[in-house]
C-alpha cells in the first residue's frame, strides 16, 4: 500500500484535519512530519532561497524530511475562493517548487473556485489516483467534511467563549501556520498563558462572518486569509484589551494588510515579525511591556 506524506506547514493547518479523516476512512497509511524543530528548519534553509518567507522555508524543511519516508507528498495549490478571496502567491507556487526541488512524487489538487476547481473535485481526483472507486471516495469525502465541521464548530465555540472571560484578553492575529508552529508561535502562546492572558485566535472564528466584516476596515482587500483575520478584529473589538499581530518575515500580504489595519484600529496593539534568526528574548521583552500597558489601562 502506498504511503502519503503530509508536510506539517502552510496547507496542513487549513486542510490537515480533512485529509486525516479522508485518509483514515479510505484506510490509506499516511505520515505527518513532526512539529517544526531545529533539524527541519535547517533542512528548509538548505533548499530555500534566502528571501522566502519563514513559513515557506519551514514548509520546504518538512517536505525534505518526508522525501524518503513516503511514496507521495501531498501538496495542493490554492489559487482563489472566487475573485475577491485570493491567496498569497506562495500558495500558488508551492506545488511547482516542491515538484522541481525534490525527486519524490507529488499528489496534487487545485482549488480555483473562479474556474470551478473545488476541494471536492480535488479530493476525488486524489482518491482516483490512489485507486479507489468513485462511490467509496464520495463516502470518504462526506465523512471527512462532516467530521471536520464538527471539530471546527467546537473550536469556534471554545474560542468565542473566551471573549466572555474576565482575564486580560488579547486577540492573536496571525495565520494558523505561524500561530501553531513550534518555532514561530508556540513560545509566544506559552508566555502569554503563563502570564494569565486569555488568548483569542484570529483563525478560529466563523469565516463566513469575519470575511464579510473585513469590508468595514478595507474595501479593496482580496486576500482570503487576511480578510478572515481582519474580520476577526472587527468582530471582537469591543470585547478585547489588545491585539498582537504576528507574522513571518517577509510575508507579502501581511506587510501591507497589517500596516493598514494598524493605522486604522484604535485598540492597543503590537506587531511581531519573526525570521529564522529571531531569538525569543527580544520578543519576550516586548510582550512583557505590552501586557503591563494593557493591565495598567485596565486598573486605572
Amino acid at each position, binding site marked *: 500500500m502506498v504511503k502519503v506524506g503530509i508536510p506539517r506547514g502552510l496547507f496542513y493547518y487549513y486542510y490537515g484535519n480533512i485529509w486525516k479523516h479522508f485518509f483514515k476512512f479510505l484506510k490509506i497509511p499516511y505520515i505527518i512530519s513532526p512539529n517544526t524543530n531545529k533539524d527541519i528548519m535547517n533542512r528548509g534553509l538548505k533548499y530555500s532561497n534566502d528571501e522566502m*518567507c519563514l513559513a515557506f522555508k519551514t514548509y520546504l524543511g518538512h517536505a525534505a524530511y518526508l522525501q524518503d519516508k513516503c511514496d507521495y507528498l501531498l501538496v495542493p495549490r490554492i*489559487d482563489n475562493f472566487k475573485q475577491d478571496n485570493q491567496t498569497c*502567491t*506562495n500558495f500558488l507556487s508551492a*506545488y*511547482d517548487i516542491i*515538484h522541481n526541488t525534490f525527486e519524490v512524487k507529488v499528489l496534487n489538487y487545485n482549488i480555483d473556485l473562479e474556474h470551478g476547481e473545488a476541494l471536492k473535485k480535488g479530493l476525488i481526483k486524489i482518491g482516483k489516483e490512489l485507486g479507489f472507486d468513485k462511490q467509496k471516495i464520495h463516502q470518504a469525502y462526506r465523512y471527512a467534511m462532516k467530521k471536520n465541521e464538527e471539530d471546527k464548530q467546537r473550536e469556534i465555540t471554545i474560542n468565542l467563549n473566551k471573549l466572555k472571560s474576565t482575564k486580560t484578553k488579547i486577540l492573536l492575529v496571525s495565520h494558523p501556520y505561524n500561530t501553531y508552529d513550534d518555532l514561530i508561535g508556540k513560545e509566544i502562546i506559552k508566555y502569554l498563558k503563563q502570564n494569565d492572558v486569555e488568548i483569542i485566535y484570529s483563525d478560529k472564528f466563523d469565516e463566513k462572518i469575519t470575511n464579510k466584516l473585513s469590508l468595514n476596515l478595507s474595501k*479593496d482587500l482580496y486576500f482570503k486569509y487576511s480578510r478572515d483575520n481582519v474580520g476577526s478584529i472587527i468582530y471582537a473589538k469591543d470585547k478585547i484589551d489588545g491585539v498582537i499581530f504576528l507574522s513571518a518575515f*517577509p510575508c507579502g500580504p501581511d506587510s501591507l494588510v497589517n500596516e493598514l489595519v494598524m493605522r486604522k484600529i484604535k485598540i492597543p496593539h503590537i506587531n511581531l515579525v519573526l525570521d529564522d534568526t529571531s531569538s525569543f528574548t527580544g520578543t519576550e521583552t516586548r510582550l512583557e511591556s505590552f501586557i503591563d500597558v494593557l493591565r495598567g489601562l485596565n486598573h486605572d
Partner: protein
Amino acid sequence: MTKIAYPLMGDYHVPAKFLLSHILNAEIISPPPITNKTIELGTKYSPEFVCTPFKYTLGTMIESIEKGANALIQMGGGCRYGYYAEVQEQILKDLGYDVTLINLVTKGKTDFRRIVREFKKIDKHFSLLKALYYGFITVKMVKYMDTIDDYIRENIGFELEAGSFEALKFKMLRDFGKVDSYHELYKKYKYYLKEFAKVKIHKPDNCLKIGIIGELYTVMEPFSNYFLEKELAQNHIEIKRFTNAHYLLFEKTWAIKRYLKDMKPYIKYQMGADASDNIARTKYLCEAGYDGIIHIKSSFCTPEIGAMPIINKIAGQYEKPVIFFSFDANTSETGIKTRLEAFYDMLEMRRGK
C-alpha cells in the same frame, strides 16, 4: 479643479499624459523624474518589508502632491501590487495630505466599470466614446514605443556615435506626445522607424547576447534597476527583454496558456504575477542561443522568489549562466557593477572555448 498625477514607469508617462489630457477636463501634473530623493521619501513612509515598487510609487506620489496634485492614479497586478492603492491612500492621509487615490484595478484585475466611475467623479462631462477613441490611440502608441524599444535594445550597444539612439528616442517621445489623431501617430511612427534604421551601427555577427527577465516594475523602470540595460549596452551586448506594457495589457492572457503548455515537464500552474512567464522565457533563451540570462527583481517580490529555484534548475540543465539581482532602495551600485563585470567576463571566456 482636479489636479491629477500618475505613477512613473519607464517612458510610459508619455502615453499616460497623452490619454489623461485628452479625455479628462482636469489639470495634469507631470510628476518629477525619479531621483534618489524619490526613493528616500518612499522608503521613509513605507512599511518595513514591502516590495520596492511600493516605495518608488509612494515617493512619486508625495513629490506630485508637492507639485500641486490632489488626485493620484494607481494601478495593480496579480500579486500584492493590486492592494497598493488603499494602503498608500491611508499613509498619505496620515501624513496630512488631502488627496484622492484613483485605483484603476479591483482585486488585482483591471476593472473598466470602476475606471469609468472614477473618471466620472472627476469630470462630469466625461465621455466614454472620446475615451475609447483616445484609448485606442494610446494603446497603439504603447505598441509602437515597445516595437521601437525592442529595436533599440538589439542595436544600442553597437552605435558608432555614442548617444545617437537616445537622442532620437527623446525626439520621438516628444513628437508622440504631441499627436492628435491616429493617422498622425502612424505617420510619425513610420518616420521614426526609418530614422532609427538610418542610425549607423557596427554590429559583429558573434556579439554577446543576453536576455533580461524578472519582475515587471524593476524590468521596466530603468532607475529601479540601476540602468542595467545602459550598462550592458556600454559593453556592446545585444539585449532581449520580454516584459513591456503592451505584453502585460494585451498579450499576457493568451501567452500564458501557450507558456504553460510548453513548460509541462517543469510547471503545471500559473505561479502568480509574471513567475511562470519568466520560467518559460528562461527555456526560450536557453534554446535560442543566448549567452546568458539576467534575472532582476525588487527585494521581497514573492512570485519571483518562487520562480528562482526553477529558473536555476532549467538554466543548469541547459548549462546556461544565469545571474540573479535583487534591488532595494539601498543596494550598492558598485556591487552590481562588479558582479556584472564578472558575469560578462565569464560569458566571453565561455565564448572563447
